[in-house]
């Protein structure tokens, strides 16, 4: 079994790359909006930290103990929301994340993709 073969299934190159070298993983001291949630199915835990300048998200970081899909999703989400207004950030949907992740995610793993979204909603006090 080569590494490429092994990475079939839900693991696209984007997910593998984001898992190995996340761009937005880490603490964000002084973050103005912070939330954390857990997926009861698998125990995935994601904490999202956002810095706000007025209504605009100026920086985002995440930490967590999760599977590769969830971590990659959080990393992509952090990238997508930076520079957006609070309202725009809340409009990011699973489809936007999937478009970047380029992965074939089955329903059983979809919550791994969407957990960071609900954490974002909580952090921004919005409702999805």
């Amino acid at each position, binding site marked *: 079994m080569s590494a490429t*073969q*092994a990475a079939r299934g839900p693991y696209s190159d984007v997910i593998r790359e984001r898992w190995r070298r996340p761009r937005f993983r880490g603490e964000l001291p002084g973050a103005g909006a912070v939330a954390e949630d857990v997926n009861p199915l*698998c125990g995935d835990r994601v904490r999202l930290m956002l810095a706000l300048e007025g209504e605009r998200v100026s920086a985002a970081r995440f930490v967590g103990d999760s*599977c590769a899909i969830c971590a990659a999703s959080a990393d992509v989400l952090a990238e997508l929301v930076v520079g957006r207004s609070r309202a725009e950030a809340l409009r990011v949907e699973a489809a936007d994340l999937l478009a970047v992740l380029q992965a074939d995610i089955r329903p059983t793993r979809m919550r791994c993709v969407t957990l960071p979204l609900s954490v974002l909603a909580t952090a921004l006090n919005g409702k999805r």
Partner: protein
Amino acid sequence: MRLDELTRPDFPILERVVNGHPLVYLDSAASSQRPRTVIEAMSQYYARSHANVHRSIHTLGEEATELYEAARDRVQRFIGAQHREEVIFTRGTTDGLGLLAETIGRTLRAGDEVLITELEHHSNIVPWQLATRDRGAVLKAVPLGDDGTLDLEAFERLLTRRTRVVAFAHVSNVLGTINPVARMCARARQAGAFSVVDGAQAAPHLSLDMGALDCDFYAFSAHKMLGPTGIGVLYGRREVLEALEPGRGGSEMIKEVWIDRAQWNDLPWRFEPGTPPIAEAVGLSAAIEYLEKLGMDAVAEHERALTRQTLEGLAAIPGVRVYGPPASEARGAVVAFSVEGLHPHDVAALLDAEGIAVRAGHHCAMPLMRRLGVVGTSRASFSVFNSPEEVRHLLAAVGELRTAL
């Protein structure tokens, strides 16, 4: 002939190709697969004999009743119960344990204690939380030693005159630990407590003898032992069952009903309200027949060899950690493991890409996961149809995992 060579042709699902690979099914602890005889017995029942049991005075009703009650007789022999009325059909282990927690729960008083253990499945934790919560009773748990076995000295300390129920697994669904059932049940009885054994992971793999275990209650599911979903067994010692008021009402469990009261039916029907899972009983009977033909000692020996091979093989892979008692100890047919740097769900998904089905997550044992200090583990588990070649396939695939993501 090896047991897997003998049995594999009987399991149609093993012909499946998954993600381009022949299916390697290592998730029987969650739910096993079924031999053709079980599938056919159930179709045959539906095609020829189905009617409601016990109250239909016509040929089909009589046939269905006969088949349903014959299944009870077969279960009685299989588990070494002294009387047929000690065998209650339920919807599964969870249902059996829930029935007990509800029924015994009504008799709990403030200050009474229920003693469980740290290695229980949620099904043997949460029903007791519900049963104790509203009655001012107290739920306690026997801690687990670092070797993956129960701290029996602590068990002795926690077992007091206040203890009304001692509920624990025969075999841990994560660690594979085999608990000393007979000893713990004897101590429970001396203390005046009911003993309740969760046998979900034992019934498919060990030869059972209720007389030797001498427990008050023993619950298990058909679907983990080559039988259908939707049916399980709750064994209850006759004297204890006779003294218990039923916790659930409905048809079948009564002799006579008035608007304000009812007279209970005889055992075992007193604890079987509503139309029972009849086709499932027929399927369970066929599953037991299949296991008995193989011989439970041969089944246990086969699965023990696969478990040992897996434990030793996984322990030799760098970055892989296995949980539970060492390979030299008697263990159930499960091996929980983790791969450094990989989430259990990623392990399972990567193995699935190779056609290998393992379970990943908390295995419905969150308190145990917390005790082990992990969010979850991956778990391979075995049945009669698994082969040493399949284990080698698993070991090779796990060996590649650390570079896979």
